[in-house]
């Protein structure tokens, strides 16, 4: 929280310094119309070269940030990315001062050097003092950033030179990208993809288990520095479009979203690159719609949107997904318990008669009539039962009958197993079986039946429906359902 608030304060300071020079004045492309419909058409038709550059740049930076960000996230170096991205600002300013113009190569070199210097200072502090890494990162991040802000402000007040563009480095403006920028971004992205592809297994093993990587003669430190260098490159090429303040989010957020979707590193790398790309395009598009909208925040908004979707709906790790699975699981357990209760009612009267009344079910389940009515409707929805019009009689469908018998079989088999194999006494086994019956799979049931020598009665003397008879009924079952017919 505190980090965010000081970032905000610094940003405000910066804006205050530049108040006399309106933000949109230096915008490249000089778009005066603000009608968003025209802007959409303009964006989608790619007529405007600045649109094409913005789009290409956003795609390139999205890919390289996602790619490298994946490794940052699994190596728990997210804060390092943040510090690195802030530490580059003084380098950007010095690169600009080199010949007081926006020369991409000079800025690239300056920013990379400053970024790497920042991480070196962090290492120096952690190695020579007892301060821990998070403290060192926090200090270096803010220290370098302040130097950068001062320098940038100074440049703003310089009487000479073309100052246009330097202000875009804070929050980013994709429309300010030129052909030289795109070229540089292309080279860096290609380099990142090549290096990661060639050394994928080395990066994988040294990220997962550096001690082991060392023992198989992988130069772990070298690969660490290589990754940091690529990271610095990726940050620097992204600066102009995303801005210093938010570029670390483009490293972390797409990768974090990908982490929630998959359990395999190569898929995570791929997904993170796609998410980065999408966020980049999202940002480029929306910042184009209005006058002088910064690109960075929109890109990060796009990435955060992707993350939010993954957070809630990822197939395995999503919050809503997990809740849904749990809920449907508990509903299923309830349905299965009702089926079992109906079976017990039928069993008590020797599987004779025309279905089960709501009252009988309520007595068996020890609940009110309303609850039983509600539960019988659940059975109907699951197509396990049909209900009489007035709603007071329940007939199991063949599927319901089969499931009910499976439940009873599982329950009684498990009870028998506990008493005979695990020496539980007969009055201790019911509660355990109540839970286990819902999760026994076919394979385990078969193993249990075999283990128990196909026993037919449970510890309480009740008959255990055999898998064989359930299986047989699956073929020509209709007439065997009680209420429809005769036998169990």
């Amino acid at each position, binding site marked *: 929280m505190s980090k965010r608030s000081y970032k905000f304060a610094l940003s405000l300071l910066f804006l205050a310094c530049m108040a006399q020079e309106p933000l949109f004045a230096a915008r490249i492309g000089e778009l005066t119309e603000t009608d968003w419909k025209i802007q959409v058409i303009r964006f989608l038709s790619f007529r405007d070269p600045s649109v094409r550059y913005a789009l290409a740049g956003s795609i390139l930076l999205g890919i390289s940030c996602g790619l490298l960000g994946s490794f940052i996230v699994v190596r728990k170096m997210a804060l390092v990315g943040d510090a690195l991205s802030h530490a580059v600002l003084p380098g950007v300013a010095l690169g600009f001062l080199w010949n007081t113009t926006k020369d991409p190569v000079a800025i690239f070199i300056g920013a990379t050097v400053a970024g790497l210097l920042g991480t070196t200072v962090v290492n120096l502090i952690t190695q020579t003092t007892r301060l821990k890494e998070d403290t060192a990162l926090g200090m270096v991040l803010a220290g370098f950033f302040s130097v950068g802000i001062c320098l940038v402000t100074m440049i703003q007040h310089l009487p000479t030179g073309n100052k246009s563009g330097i202000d875009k480095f804070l929050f980013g403006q994709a429309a300010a990208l030129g052909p030289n920028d795109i070229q540089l971004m292309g080279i860096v992205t290609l380099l990142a993809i090549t290096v990661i592809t060639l050394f994928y*297994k080395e990066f994988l093993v040294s990220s997962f*288990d550096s*001690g*082991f990587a*060392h*023992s*198989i003669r992988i130069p772990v430190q070298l690969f660490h520095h290589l990754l940091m260098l690529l990271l610095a490159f990726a940050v620097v090429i992204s600066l102009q479009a995303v801005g210093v303040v938010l570029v670390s989010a483009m490293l972390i957020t797409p990768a974090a979203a990908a982490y929630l979707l998959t*359990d395999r590193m190569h898929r995570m790398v791929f997904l993170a690159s796609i998410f980065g790309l999408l966020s980049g395009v999202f940002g480029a598009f929306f910042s184009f719609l209005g006058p002088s909208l910064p690109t960075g925040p929109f890109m990060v908004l796009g990435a955060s949107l992707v993350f939010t979707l993954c957070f809630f709906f990822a197939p395995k790790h999503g919050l809503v997904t997990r809740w849904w699975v749990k809920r449907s699981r508990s509903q299923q357990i309830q349905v299965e318990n009702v089926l079992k209760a109906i079976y017990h009612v039928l069993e008590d009267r020797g599987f004779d008669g025309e279905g089960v009344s709501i009252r009988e079910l309520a007595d068996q389940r020890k609940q009110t009539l309303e609850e039983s009515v509600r539960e019988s409707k659940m059975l109907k929805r699951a197509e396990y039962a049909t209900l009489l019009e007035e709603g007071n009689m329940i007939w199991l469908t063949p599927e319901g009958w089969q499931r009910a018998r499976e439940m009873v079989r599982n329950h009684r088999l498990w009870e028998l197993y506990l008493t005979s194999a695990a020496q539980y006494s007969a009055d201790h086994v019911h509660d355990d079986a109540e839970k286990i019956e819902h999760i026994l799979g076919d394979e385990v049931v078969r193993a249990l039946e075999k283990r128990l020598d196909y026993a037919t009665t449970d510890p309480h003397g009740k008959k255990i429906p055999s898998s064989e008879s359930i299986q047989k009924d699956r073929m020509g079952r209709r007439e065997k359902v009680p209420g429809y017919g005769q036998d169990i």
Partner: protein
Amino acid sequence: MNTEKEPVPLEVHDLTVAYQKKAVLWGIDLVVPKGKLIGIVGPNGAGKSTLIKTIMGIIPASSGWVKIFGEEKNLRRVGYVPQRESVDWDFPVSVMDVVLMGRYGKLGLFKRPGKADVDIARQCLDKVKMLPYANRQISNLSGGQQQRVFLARALAQESDLYFMDEPFSGVDASTEAAIITLLHDLKEKGKTLMVVHHDLPTARNYFDMLLLLNMRVVAFGPTDEVFNYELLQKTYGGRLTILAEVAEAVRQKS
């Protein structure tokens, strides 16, 4: 057998290790014979893990040298099982991915593991009875299963000298029994195994030789000879506090 011709698996001479000027291992001398199952025992902070890490060059030594099969910096024939806690088990890799890492050392740069490597990895997983889990993500494994995966990875390395850091810590009894059987099998094949172990009673039964370590080598020899009250007292007893105090004093002066 031309065992006489081949240099011993491991020779360590006057090895000293210091963290920020604080010595943790002093003048370690070792000559380890081939085909033995060796336990490294000693109290907490005795430098057991540090010793094997330094032998492999993961931690730099302050002085002394290490020869593996007669050569310095020769890790080609070394297999390693790190401590289970040393890695993040939420890392996005499958059991198979981890075991395949055991093949990386043999592959060299730029090469990806191929079908032959996958076959070897499958065999190794089968040996530790983890084959059905090959495609699982590693975070779903129990402690014992994690340890089996690490062992399978070491097996996939097909090495001649193994270092294992507490392979029995936090595993269930059946895994412990399975591991010890596996270690004996490896030994029968002429491999040399050095195993960091923290449980004294079992150490006596598990290992052919014991290295009693407490910042220095207290004793190294056949289990029958070194597992006695006097030497264990020396390893675990109070006298080591003096050594620790000296080390602290040295650190403060320098």
